[in-house]
């Protein structure tokens, strides 16, 4: 097994110096009515976990009870925080039948052209997954290169030392209330380790793994890309995910070692009843690079701001994101970059579309530490308003603590220009085709970063979303 150094110290340093997190929260101690240590023990016991993990969960529960919901967050009052156990307790007796799946989701499966066979498993109905076979063959191929790709529960058992050293060090439970909740009740997810110098030449897709009941709600993803290695990981799938439980508080922790490169793509399309309060973060060592590709389409409320901590000299981060907020949706998304070392670079390219009363918010931070000289950062935010019932806000912060920097930030907001539509119509396109073409062009920077089948599905999704208003 490859030597994995102890992480705690530098994570502590980063927390202290960069996030300044320790006194961030006003503690409003409130013992939760629903979520008790007994329930946590029950969850842990069912998974047959080592004691350290049980202790970790219990400590996270305590932190969860201490922290408040951030005051700047979108309205999540419909989420019964005081009775969080509703969302958390494993429902072993829960049986979802195909008939319970909302029609809009079934429709979308059909319109996206997803094979009938996959409908049920995507919807979380089937216990077994048809792609299991695919998954196993992928697994063997990777094993041959020394890559570890397994589910988190197995990883805690089989690779206990590595997991213990890394688990929630990148995103500590103290980060915010839902990170703490995650630490207490996490379940499912993936663990990937790519050894030094290994370049995984096919994208790994969490899509291929079987979904245990209840998983996919508090799933934990932990990826380590060792020195000089490369990985493209694709999370989720563009078909809508349906769950009767409407809270998703997942956590993604990525470790990119010296000279390594990780590309992490997500097309997120939760069903429209979902509160998606997800935390994603990557620590990048010297000359390493992280590339985030992020498409947010679904959910009722999303709060998602993938963070890159550029810890080593020459580290880089690239974020490309599209958010599409339709009727009844409040999607608060963005990116965070902490430049913690010299000669680091970052790019943020965020696009959003708001229509039919949807709210799209870009929220971000680029922070440049005093020692991070010769830093370069380029931020660009573009918002498209499809009508005047919708709302679109851009809330970026630039925090610069030294002078050897080159920072450029641009943002634009507006609607599709009438002149652009007229121009395309003179070339024979109908008005709705012209609009769709402009919107597709708007999200092209994301689409071109995705594997073909995902790009096609994303275009289909946009077409479906636009049909609603344009007819």
């Amino acid at each position, binding site marked *: 097994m490859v030597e994995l150094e102890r992480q705690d110290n530098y994570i502590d340093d980063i927390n202290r110096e960069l*996030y*300044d*997190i320790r006194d*961030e*929260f006003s503690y409003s101690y409130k013992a939760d009515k629903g979520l008790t240590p007994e329930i946590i023990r029950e969850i842990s016991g069912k998974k047959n976990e080592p004691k350290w993990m049980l202790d970790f969960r219990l400590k996270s529960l305590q932190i969860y009870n201490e922290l408040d919901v*951030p*005051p*700047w967050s979108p309205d999540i009052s419909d989420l019964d925080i005081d009775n969080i156990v509703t969302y958390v307790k494993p429902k072993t007796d829960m049986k979802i039948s195909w008939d319970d799946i909302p029609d809009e989701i079934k429709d979308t499966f059909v319109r996206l052209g997803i094979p009938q066979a996959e409908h049920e498993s995507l919807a979380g109905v089937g216990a077994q997954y048809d792609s299991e076979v695919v998954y196993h063959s992928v697994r063997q191929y990777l094993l041959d290169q020394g890559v570890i790709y397994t589910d988190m529960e197995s990883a805690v058992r089989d690779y206990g030392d590595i997991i213990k050293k890394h688990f929630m060090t990148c995103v500590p439970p103290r980060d915010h209330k839902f990170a703490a909740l995650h630490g207490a009740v996490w379940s499912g997810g993936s663990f990937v380790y790519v050894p030094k110098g290994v370049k995984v030449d096919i994208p790994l897709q969490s899509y291929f793994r079987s979904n245990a009941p209840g998983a996919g709600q508090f799933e934990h993803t932990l990826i380590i890309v060792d020195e000089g290695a490369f990985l493209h990981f694709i999370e989720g799938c563009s078909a809508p995910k349906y769950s009767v439980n409407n809270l998703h508080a997942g956590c993604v922790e990525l470790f990119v070692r010296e000279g390594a490169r990780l590309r992490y793509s997500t097309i997120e399309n939760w069903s429209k009843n979902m509160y998606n309060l997800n935390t994603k973060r990557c620590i990048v060592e010297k000359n390493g690079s992280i590339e985030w590709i992020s498409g947010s389409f679904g959910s009722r409320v999303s709060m998602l701001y993938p963070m890159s901590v550029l810890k080593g000299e020459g580290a880089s981060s690239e974020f490309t994101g599209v958010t599409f907020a339709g009727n009844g949706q409040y999607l608060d998304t963005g990116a965070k970059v902490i430049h913690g070392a010299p000669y680091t670079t970052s790019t943020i390219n965020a696009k959003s579309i708001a229509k039919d009363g949807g709210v799209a918010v870009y*929220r971000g*931070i680029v*922070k440049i530490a*005093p020692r991070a*000289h010769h830093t370069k950062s380029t931020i660009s935010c573009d*918002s498209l*308003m*499809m*009508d*005047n019932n*919708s*709302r*679109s*806000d*851009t*809330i*970026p*912060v*630039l*925090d*610069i*603590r*030294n*002078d*050897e*920097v*080159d*920072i*450029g*930030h*641009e*943002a*634009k*907001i*507006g*609607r599709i220009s009438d002149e652009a539509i007229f121009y395309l119509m003179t070339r024979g396109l109908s008005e709705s085709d012209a609009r769709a073409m402009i919107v597709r062009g708007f999200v092209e920077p994301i689409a071109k970063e995705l594997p073909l089948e995902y790009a096609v599905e994303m275009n289909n999704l946009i077409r479906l979303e636009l049909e609603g208003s344009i007819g």
Partner: protein
Amino acid sequence: MIKLNELNTLPVPTFRWLRVNELAIDDEIDFEARPYGKDFLQMAPQGELIQRQMPYNGLTDRPIMKDLMDSAGFGVSEDLVGFADTFHNSGMYIEIPRGIKVTEPIMVGYKPDSDNPTVIDNNLIIAHEHSEVTIVMDIASSANASAVHNGVTRVVAKEGAMVTVIKIQRMNDSSFHFDSNLALVGSGARVDYIVAELGSKKAAVNYTCRLSEGAQSHINTIYLGNGDRHLDLSFLMEHQGRRSTSSIEARGALRDMASKTFKGTIDFKKGADKSEGSESEHVLLFDRTVKSISVPLLLCSEDDVKGQHAISSGKVDQDKLFYLMSRGFSRGEAMVLLAEASFSDVIDKIYPKSLEDLIRAEISGRLLHGN
């Protein structure tokens, strides 16, 4: 007791750990409401306008006061605005009748000293339909005085009126400066601000402009940070009416341990269709120890609008600095030249020209000394 922990609150809050949602000041500041015994009205044009030095008792009879009292929610903080409304020791009440164009600027100047260390000014400027006026307010402080300034200026520009307010702040490094500004810009009216924030130990200023149909407002500002001073600048353009236009343009320079937070917001409210707003900030960073925080917000509830902002920050071009030094300028002199070059567009807008010299002197004074 005036609370100083929630100043210049961001129009919409964001992540708490960034500490940009509000400014907290922990310095001991003497807010005693003592009189200001010096003259402050320096040049008053003759003609058909009403000018009264504050406190002025006739104000409450004016029907306009109701509009103003209803316009809450502006300023550095509610406490500071309330304090100036109640305990002001100076200020101007100016009313320009309909159609009158006042060609000469009205000039107000304060120079607090150890006998008169406190300036609490309350200004109200009402420009009736199609009138025009320029008001210049300059505040400096005597070298050895620890002065406190807390001001409130309200501008009401009625239909088609044009008001220009020039504010220059060059207080010394042991003084504190708070300034709250509100402009109600009527339909087709225009209110422009030219703001030079050059001095004081800590400064927190707030400009809120509410734009009706066809209204315009433009803010041009320069700021300078040196030593361990802190500047907190907040500008808010609220587009309420359709076809309204706004711009916020900031040019800054920071050196030593100086820090600055710039919050600029363009808010397109429902009904503000066909409006346009733009915002830009360019900061020159002279030293590794500076802190520069920018929070440029775009808030939008209308689709047929155009909003944009652009921010750039960077180290002063070392080649330029070197070039100037090779021509015999000291590093400080070279910094002055580069800062003035960056500020020149704004400085050019300032008049009378005598003020330009005062501003250049302040910039030289603050950039020449030290390393």
